[in-house]
């Protein structure tokens, strides 16, 4: 968490060290293939690579030409080919086909595959099956943590979510454990650990095992970060399904922020070309509005524009000497600010245009109704119309999932009718999509005469509520219910507001959703940190279906300075939204820890 707005904010660890490490290791690996070589880079790795090295660095290490890994025959004439890829089966097939084509043509070259962040046995198996194992040398580039900002690290693994939460494949758990191990090696051990969720628990266990195996490395180091919190994405799907209304979140929803940068099209840049822009704390204009509710952003930008105008105007009354000073010292900064300002104003305009076109207001209203649990019928009708009008396939699904999770599943009649209409509007092959969403627990149907509820209600008539709760636990493996309403009540996620919620002066984390909802994930984090553990949260943990999966581990470490104890690292397993980041930044500012 970062607190850039507090003068007494604790100093953040120097995460740029991670970039240097990754770069050094890449250089080392390239040197393993001495001489001129062509480098094939997987598209998904280009942006992360771009953030730590540039072309001239690669050229220094005798990389001759660069190619994108795509399913086309290679035109390279180099004697040595190096592939920088994610460990994916299709990449292996592609590489094997290249090697085999060379063999057929009687051509010999050297091939090297660098897997990032690690190689998988399944990949090597494919190389073996295709008969190229041994022709190709394999290496690993353990580049698993990319600092996107002063307070933000990313694993840049979009498949993490699907692999674990849909397929139940635990292949990234080791990657995560290694990354956590690296962090504790570089920034000292974490005195306090908390976590919730099955994946979090497994990652934690594996990480601890790694630390034991390589005993001594972190001992004796001063911890730089006081707390670490691991949280599975499926503990809180609701927050990830809500439309974002803080500026950075809106930019992401509208233009997609990838790897910390965004492509602004001509409609934003007001020129004929697109511009790739890095979005982080270095962009002074962006840094001031990123966490703001969108309704404040316009006012802020126009104030900023007026100030800028005034500063430009100052030069009118200047004599030659003052003018010289102005030009040499201030003009550059002003111009830079000018450019940033016009970019963000352009982005705002574009967002506004898109949002008014698709009646955003109505959409938000529906989401809020779903979160609060009223007018369910009306919301369902809205979703239906959304689908019928073929508005956006993703948005329609998002709304359906939100309805499902907040209501513990759709009633069968609605499920069937919405599904049918969805298939008619967006294509019958989405039958597969619905199946996947059901498996992930994102979009489910209430079973008619639900065995669970039937038993539950029978039992609760006979025995006390507590006993009924136990029985629900026993069934929870069969039918995982989201229990959102009960959780929301327990954790007070829907703030009661008298009068208007002042979005300019937010009073709680709910501001990231216009004051209508406190993100569940962030509320859990807040509560656990406040209590230094899960005490008193048993009921919530049970409702989250995580009875065995919430853990705390605190070491008595007197080396931890009070400064470091104010720093908290939150790890979202399966991704997080910018709204959550903003909410946590707010929390950091409020609590000062």
């Amino acid at each position: 968490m970062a607190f850039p707005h507090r003068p007494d904010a604790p100093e953040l660890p120097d995460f740029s060290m991670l970039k240097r490490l990754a770069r050094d290791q890449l250089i080392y690996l390239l040197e393993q293939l001495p001489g001129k070589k062509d480098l094939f880079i997987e598209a998904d790795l280009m942006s992360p690579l771009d953030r730590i090295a540039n072309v001239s660095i690669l050229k220094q290490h005798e990389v001759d030409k660069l190619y994108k890994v795509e399913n086309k025959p290679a035109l390279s004439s180099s004697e040595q080919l190096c592939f920088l890829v994610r460990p994916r089966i299709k990449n292996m097939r592609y590489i094997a086909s290249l090697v085999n084509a060379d063999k057929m043509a009687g051509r010999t070259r050297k091939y090297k595959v660098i897997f990032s962040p690690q190689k998988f046995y399944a990949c090597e198996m494919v190389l073996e099956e295709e008969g190229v194992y041994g022709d190709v040398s394999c290496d690993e580039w353990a580049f698993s943590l990319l600092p996107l900002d002063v307070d933000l690290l990313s694993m840049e693994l979009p498949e993490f979510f699907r692999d674990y939460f849909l397929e139940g494949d635990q292949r990234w758990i080791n990657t995560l454990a290694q990354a956590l191990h690296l962090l504790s090696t570089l920034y000292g051990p974490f005195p306090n650990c908390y976590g919730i969720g099955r994946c979090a628990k497994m990652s934690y266990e594996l990480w601890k095992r790694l630390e034991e195996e390589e005993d001594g490395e972190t001992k004796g180091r001063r911890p730089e970060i006081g707390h670490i919190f691991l949280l599975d994405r499926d503990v809180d799907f609701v927050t990830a399904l809500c439309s974002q209304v803080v500026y950075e979140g809106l930019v992401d929803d509208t233009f997609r922020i990838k790897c910390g940068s965004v492509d602004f099209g001509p409609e934003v840049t007001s020129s004929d070309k697109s511009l790739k822009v890095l979005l982080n704390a270095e962009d002074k204009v962006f840094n001031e509005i990123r966490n703001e509710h969108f309704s404040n952003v316009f006012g802020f930008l126009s104030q900023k524009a007026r100030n800028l105008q005034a500063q430009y105007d100052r030069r009118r009354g200047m004599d030659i000497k003052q003018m010289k000073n102005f030009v040499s010292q201030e003009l550059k900064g002003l111009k830079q600010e000018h450019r940033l300002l016009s970019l963000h104003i352009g982005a705002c305009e574009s967002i506004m245009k898109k949002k008014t076109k698709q009646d955003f207001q109505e959409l938000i209203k529906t989401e809020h109704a779903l979160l609060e649990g009223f007018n369910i019928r009306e919301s369902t009708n809205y979703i239906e119309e959304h689908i019928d009008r073929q508005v956006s396939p993703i948005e329609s699904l998002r709304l359906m999932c939100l309805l499902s999770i907040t209501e513990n599943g759709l009633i069968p009649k609605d499920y069937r009718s919405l599904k049918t209409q969805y298939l008619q509007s967006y294509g019958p092959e989405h039958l597969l999509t619905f199946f996947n969403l059901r498996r992930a627990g994102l979009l489910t149907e209430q079973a008619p005469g639900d065995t669970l509820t039937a038993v539950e209600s029978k039992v609760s008539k006979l025995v006390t509520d507590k006993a009924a709760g136990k029985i629900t636990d026993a069934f929870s493996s069969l039918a995982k219910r989201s229990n959102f309403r009960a959780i929301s009540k327990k954790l007070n996620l829907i703030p009661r507001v008298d009068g208007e919620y002042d979005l300019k002066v937010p009073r709680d984390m709910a501001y990231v959703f216009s004051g209508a909802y406190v993100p569940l994930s962030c509320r859990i984090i807040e509560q656990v940190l406040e209590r230094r553990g899960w005490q008193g949260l048993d009921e919530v943990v049970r409702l989250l279906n995580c009875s065995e999966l919430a853990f705390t581990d605190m070491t008595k470490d007197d080396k931890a300075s009070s400064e470091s104890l104010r720093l908290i690292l939150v790890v979202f397993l399966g991704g997080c939204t910018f709204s959550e980041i903003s909410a946590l930044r707010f929390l950091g500012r409020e609590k000062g820890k």
Partner: protein
Amino acid sequence: MNRTKGDEEEYWNSSKFKAFTFDDEDDELSQLKESKRAVNSLRDFVDDDDEDDLERVSWTGEPVGRRTRPGSFQSLSDALSDTPAKSYAPELGRPKGEYRDYSNDWSPSDTVRRLRKGKVCSLERFRSLQDKIQLLEEAVSMHDGNVITAVLIFLKRTLSKEILFRELEVRQVALRHLIHFLKEIGDQKLLLDLFRFLDRTEELALSHYREHLNIQDPEKRKEFLKTCIGLPFSAEDSAHIQDHYTLLERQIIIEANDRHLELAGQTEVFRKHPRKASILNMPLVTTLFYSCFYHYTEAEGTFSSPVNLKKTFKIPDKQYVLTALAARAKLRAWHDVDALFTTKNWLGYTKKRAPIGFHRVVEILHKNSAPVQVLQEYVNLVEDVDTKLNLATKFKCHDVVIDTCRDLKDRQQLLAYRSKVDKGSAEEEKIDALLNSSQIRWKN
């Protein structure tokens, strides 16, 4: 330990290519030196990456064009001065594929640990079923999916599928890994066998159905879909599969027919509005839109007529009206739009009705740039007065605004609206006449 080279043929074979090897696998210091040398040689060329500038171009293979600032790069060796060297070592390990394992005596837990570290490790000595299962359970208890899959690959190779399936049925974590692995490598046959064994009929059916996505040729795809109809889907999904087949069947007929019509150049609508894409594999609603656009007036008997589609696929009224409205509005066929909402009661009076809100109708019409005369007729039909007034103002339906203000006896709002109409226009006159009228009892 005293085996011949051939015996040591390990499952995870090692690489022929050894560009860089140390004999002592713990000699991390020499690795560091190597890396340090590499880094130091760069010092003069590398600039500081943390100065990310807005101007930077994307990774396209072109030079990034930033200033070089010699000496500003903090190399690994700089960082070393204040950090214990050891902490960096794991990051700079030598290629893990190069490690060799000459021992065949590793216990299951040692073996799993070595696998987790990416070391080459033979699994061949695990021959009894008990050993194999112990190895698998060890891998599962370690939580590392990559190792679980490695063991499963070995098990798949060395166990008959009946035994493998039977053992996995009671080991859900491992089972999920095998299913995912089979999906990824595309071993469809074994996957279907597995689902059959597990009696997971729905997944079996869906996995088979999924294959249609790989078939490009429409005729072949249609034939494939036909084979899916009898699969053990739920009753509800069976109907969807049947519909999918029927839809593609219709699309193939319509496509052939319309391509012919378009080429012949005799039909006006195709001449005026050439088709932008083929209708094949489009969703039903898109097909309906297409049919309302090109084949609106056709009789129910033809496959391409909207009415036929509506009946065949039991399209709800609401959906039908929305789509037909959008299609006819796009063609600016206002007469058809009108007919879509006109109903006659038993006395022969006509009345406008819509299964969707009229505010929605207005929006769709406006999106297709309907003239004000058309728009205002529908704005007038919006029931909620506030919505009506809002829409009328937004779309400049002056008459509706003026009349509504009059009906609401809202003088202030009318007065405010006066500034929005053109000077000297008929609307202004109308407003003035109302404002000066003594017949109206204004509420304000």
